């Protein structure tokens, strides 16, 4: 069980990630995108999910029980190669349904002090 005191807390990313042209191209090609120099709409997940995982595992949750429930992106600025991204994750909500723990984490991908993409992942930790 997640400590309810953690709901609302923001965990600042310890390190920043530099987006590479190779990582964008590989992701875009895997999805059949033709603009391989632009990060596809879901690219932020490659940064945000790892951060969410480390926050939730440190908070005592068992990542091997996780199922992705839903996902939302708000894209304020197109991600491109060379951007240095800091990812901050906030546990927005946690509830228990039928023994499963349902947690929504918002991850903000911040570039030069401004949020480029916000990613909300609802993760279901199966009982």
């Amino acid at each position, binding site marked *: 069980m997640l400590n309810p005191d953690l709901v609302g807390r923001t965990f600042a990313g310890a390190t920043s990630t530099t987006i590479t042209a190779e990582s964008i191209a590989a992701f875009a090609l895997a999805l059949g995108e033709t603009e391989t120099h632009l990060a596809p709409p879901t690219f932020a*997940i490659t940064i945000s999910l790892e951060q969410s995982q480390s926050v939730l595992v440190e908070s005592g949750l068992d990542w091997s029980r996780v199922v992705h429930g839903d996902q939302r992106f708000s894209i304020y600025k197109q991600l491109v190669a060379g951007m240095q991204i800091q990812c901050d994750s906030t546990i927005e909500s946690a509830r228990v349904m039928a023994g499963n723990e349902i947690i929504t984490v918002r991850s903000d991908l911040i570039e030069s002090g401004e949020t480029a993409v916000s990613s909300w992942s609802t993760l279901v930790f199966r009982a």
Partner: protein
Amino acid sequence: MSIFKVGEFLPSKTYIINRASLVTYANASGDQNPIHQDETFAKSVGLENVIAHGMYTMGLVGQYVSSMAGSTSKVREFSARFTKPVVVPAGVNVELVVSATVVELTDEVARLEITATCNEVKVLGMAKAVILL
């Protein structure tokens, strides 16, 4: 003037998901969970077979949205619920059929409601996008 009309049904596109494409997505995304590649492992945790990454399915739908918008850079909002797993048996090309309806237009954006099905079963729920005009 928008090229879209409210209520307009946008043309469908079909994407192929198979074991090889799951490996390509796993390598590109970094998500190497064995339920998306290893049939023995997937069955050992109670799944029918290997299943696609939810984010792979959503990513392909993102490609659909990008293509309807005219560019990846025009996608502003994108959301979906993972309602049914996409099961990918060995040696099978699973068809993901994606379509959308324009539900709202402003001077600046179009709001789309998206349908994604495999074998006529909806695999995403509440799939929506906002694209710049």
